[in-house]
């Protein structure tokens, strides 16, 4: 009797020890993700916070590697027709859903049809409008079955496009291109995203989603690359307060955070060294000028305003080098492009620029005795305010009298989109994919939603249309460059800064590569003790 109970005790003890070891061997990654996802339904999402999680949970036809380069995902290879409009994807044989089902071509057909179906209410469906008939389906003018996507067999998928789209493979890495598991969606409806229902095909599976606390995901043993996935569990925290996130990082509670407080850049450089990362980011910070209003329809006025802005000062003093002085609308380093079209006064000294700006304004009929009165609208934020105040100060010597008006983000953008009255308005744009088109399309004359400036230049539109059907990448880049040259001449938007991405990355976290899209898939990372 004693023997057995002793044996049980020993067994229990050794189990406990083994259990203890197993627990300590679990590799956990604590990741600051800035905000909560609005939803984990890939077809309803719109934010980068959701993208960061969904990228780990699912795998699309193509995917991003640690450097944000496009690499094969579920598709192991593909061919493109000569005219650039038909893509034929060969799917991997070992691609599986987390419940063991194989990932088949039909899943992608189901998913692409689902996101375009108007009833889904997909906020970002227009990302995939290059797919044939996608736009008409999304607008409710055609049936989902008419979409240019076809399963030839379980492992062959054919996607037909409206026109050649050189960034299409990159588009497929966007969260809107991720597949859903058709059976789960059919069975659970909108609740398929719940941890107890979700079936995903990426490196991780969703375990918990507690709003304002965390999202927890665990390694998916059915993932084809599971052998190479080193992190077992990921916690994504909505670290909205950057300073609080910094303290949690300093206390060792976070391995990384996707942002850092700009106003503490100097302190972070001193105390954290290269754990504080700043990298160029695919985004532009700009002021839109209302071209349908006098005197802002006058090119001389817009040019004078743009020339008189000391962008280096903004980048250095206002943004603590977390942003870079911007002299073009498309940020340097954007894919399928060479050097952007820089403003011709980029290398002029500030004094010469101010002089010429004053001259231009005088020609337009303004000066110290007849001041140009204008209002800068911006969405409420300390950084935007300090930027606007600095710019108002730079414009003052020209005889420009600036008043400031701030509203919350929703009001701000709703006002611009609904063509409300304004003179000059702040806006920022982060490219959805690494291609100049994602920037330059904003001021096409028929772009109601984004063309805040009411820019209407038929030559610009023609160049953009020509670029949209051009297959030759070099020729296309040239067309887009010509369009950007027009943009920089006409200045519907005054580019101010290129965004920089800030991040806090612990020494323990291996495999975090700074890149222009600020994309960091967990499956390429590991944690050293």
């Amino acid at each position, binding site marked *: 009797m004693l023997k057995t109970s002793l044996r049980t005790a020993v067994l229990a003890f050794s189990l406990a020890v083994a259990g203890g070891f197993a627990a300590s061997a679990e590799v956990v990654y604590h990741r600051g993700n800035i905000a*909560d996802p*609005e*939803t*984990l*339904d890939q077809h*309803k999402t*719109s934010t980068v916070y959701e993208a960061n999680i969904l990228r780990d949970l699912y795998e699309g036809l193509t995917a991003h590697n640690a450097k944000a380069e496009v690499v094969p995902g579920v598709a192991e290879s593909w061919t493109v027709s000569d005219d650039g409009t038909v893509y034929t994807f060969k799917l991997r044989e070992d691609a599986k859903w987390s419940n063991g089902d194989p990932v088949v071509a039909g899943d992608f057909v189901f998913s692409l049809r689902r996101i375009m179906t*108007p*009833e*889904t*209410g*997909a*906020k*970002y*469906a*227009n990302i995939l409008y290059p797919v044939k008939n996608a736009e008409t389906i*999304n*607008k*409710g003018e055609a049936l989902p079955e008419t979409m240019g996507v076809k399963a030839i067999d379980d492992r062959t998928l054919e996607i037909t496009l409206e026109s050649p789209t050189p960034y299409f493979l990159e588009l497929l890495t966007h969260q809107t291109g991720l597949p859903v598991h058709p059976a789960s969606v059919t069975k659970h409806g*909108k*609740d398929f*995203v*719940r941890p107890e229902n979700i079936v995903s095909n990426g490196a991780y599976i969703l375990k918990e*989603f*507690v*709003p*304002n*606390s*965390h999202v927890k995901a665990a390694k998916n043993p059915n993932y084809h690359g599971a052998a190479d996935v080193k992190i077992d569990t990921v916690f994504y*925290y*909505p*670290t*909205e*307060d950057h*300073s*609080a*996130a910094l*303290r*949690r990082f*300093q*206390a060792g*509670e976070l391995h990384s955070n996707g942002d850092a407080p700009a106003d503490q850049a100097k302190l972070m450089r001193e105390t954290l060294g290269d754990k504080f990362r700043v990298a160029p980011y695919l985004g532009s910070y700009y002021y839109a000028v209302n071209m349908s209003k006098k005197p802002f329809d006058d090119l001389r006025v817009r040019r004078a305003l743009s020339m008189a802005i000391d962008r280096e000062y903004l980048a250095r003093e206002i943004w603590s080098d977390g942003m870079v002085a911007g002299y073009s609308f498309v940020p340097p380093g954007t894919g399928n492009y060479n050097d952007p079209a820089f403003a011709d006064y980029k290398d002029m000294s500030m004094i010469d620029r101010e002089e010429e700006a004053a001259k231009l304004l005088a020609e337009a009929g303004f000066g110290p005795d007849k001041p140009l009165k204008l209002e800068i609208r911006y969405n409420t934020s300390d950084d935007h305010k300090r930027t606007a105040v600095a710019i108002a100060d730079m414009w003052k010597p020209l005889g420009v009298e600036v008043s400031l008006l701030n*509203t*919350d*983000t*929703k*009001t701000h*953008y*709703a*006002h611009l*989109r609904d063509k409300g009255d304004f003179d000059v308005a702040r*806006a920022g*744009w982060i490219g959805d994919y690494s291609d100049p088109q994602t920037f330059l399309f904003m001021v096409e004359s028929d772009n*109601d*939603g*984004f063309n805040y400036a009411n820019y209407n230049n038929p030559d610009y539109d023609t160049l953009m249309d020509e670029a949209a059907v051009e297959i030759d990448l070099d020729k296309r880049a040239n067309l887009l460059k010509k369009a950007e040259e027009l943009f920089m001449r006409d200045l519907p938007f005054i580019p101010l800064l290129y965004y920089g991405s800030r991040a806090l990355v612990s020494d323990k976290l291996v495999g975090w590569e700074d890149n222009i899209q600020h994309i960091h898939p967990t499956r390429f990372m590991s944690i050293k003790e």
Partner: protein
Amino acid sequence: MLSYVARRFFGAVPTLFIIVTVAFFLIRVAPGGPFDLERPLEAKVMENLNRIYQLDKPLWHQYLLYLESLLRGDLGPSFYFRDFSVSELFARGLPISIQLGCAALLLALLVGGLLGVIAALRQNRGTDVAVMATATFGITVPNFVVAPLLTLLFAIWLGWLPAGGWGDGALANKILPILTLALPQIAIIARLTRGSMIEMLRANHIRTARANGLPGYVVVGVHALRGALLPVVSYLGPAAAALLTGSVVIETIFGIPGVGRYFVQGALNRDYTLVMGTVIMIALFIIVFNLIVDLLYAVLDPRVRYD
């Protein structure tokens, strides 16, 4: 007594109704809607979203629909947290906010009350000055300053406590948020207690009690304190309602999944149902706590009767 409580509850129904009505129309005045993004939506998609969430109907019709679902006890779906309903969000967050709020309240009452009594007994002496100076400091320094300082001290320099996160409700994760919540309350309660205690110590019945030879601690701890607590109790009603429904600052800084953030988040995101839900929740808390205060008055002050 019971009939008094019942009367008060029925009396609260019109108040709630007015609050719901005003809040419903007020939030709709704000420009922009729940589905406005920087990248504008396709008209058809917007139309569908509006239909799914019944935003395509005239406003008065939406209002009636909302009242109807309220009567069924349904607070509607959240427009922002699209995988959750408002009730689900509250069911998860409210217990956490209540837990922290109660702990902070209890701490504030004990420490604040004690400090107040001590200060009153040592009126105009060193201890009194020290307590009141600390209290004034406690009231004037806002919690968004206190919280980072506490984390710097306890989490980063000393490394005793976590700097943030909920940790599934681990005690260590609760200490700093509770402390931050309690500090200004301690200060206010100490000041209130001191003031009324000083007044009470000069009252006739206290003089009588002393004359009758009752021991000092009974005079102070039972007879004086009881009366001195009345202003504290009336302050605690609304204060408790505010504490138990969470604090946006504390929750954001410490990363706590309570309900305090929803009001601000909901308003900024134009999450109409979430804002409405929060308004109703806070209103209910205030109504209930005001009632509790009134009932406590009867217990503490023999002159007050509700029958």
